[in-house]
């Protein structure tokens, strides 16, 4: 597609349930990123995929969070046993990796997660 697509756009769940958030990056983009943004705050890095390399998982806040990227394209962020503090907007972005290193990220509109 022309842009980064995320689904669902909104998700309300009960504490303790598992949720899956999906990201369709721009076709041909080799890098994919997940960020979390709490209300009125900046972006907190979660995980980064680059080609076939092992993902950088250094930002995942706990072992309840995991992500995979199938076939170098679509990515799914899974949160197990959700907690109220997981409520946030989850943003996905993709980019080409430039030689200069100045990656230009294109973001999706985000998935707003509310844990009751």
């Amino acid at each position: 597609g022309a842009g980064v697509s995320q689904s669902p756009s909104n998700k309300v769940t009960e504490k303790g349930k598992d949720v899956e958030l999906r990201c369709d990056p721009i076709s041909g983009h080799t890098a994919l990123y997940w960020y979390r943004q709490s209300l009125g705050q900046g972006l907190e890095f979660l995980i980064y995929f680059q080609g076939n390399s092992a993902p950088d998982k250094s930002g995942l806040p706990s072992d309840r969070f995991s992500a995979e990227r199938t076939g170098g394209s679509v990515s799914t962020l899974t949160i197990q046993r959700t907690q109220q503090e997981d409520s946030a907007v989850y943003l996905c972005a993709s980019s080409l990796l430039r030689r200069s290193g100045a990656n230009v990220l294109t973001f999706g509109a985000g998935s707003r997660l509310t844990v009751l």
Partner: protein
Amino acid sequence: TQLLEQSPQFLSIQEGENLTVYCNSSSVFSSLQWYRQEPGEGPVLLVTVVTGGEVKKLKRLTFQFGDARKDSSLHITAAQPGDTGLYLCADRSQGNLIFGKGTKLSVKP
């Protein structure tokens, strides 16, 4: 771990006023980017600056990169309501980007 600090955190001004927001890093920037995020949307790239002392202009927006590459400013001339949003600075760190917490700008008609 690199920390990006942005100031002010909030800024509310009237249409037509000028403003400047700042981004400071605890270490030298690799390549600094400024993004703007409107409510309900993802951030959109405004500019990338790489060279110390660099100045870039984008219509009414002027971006400056400090000589030591540890600070940057964004100046908006004659702000308009359409400039309202969250302004974020970001730096490349080991392949991914880390972001500051942003400056939330509100321009009132």
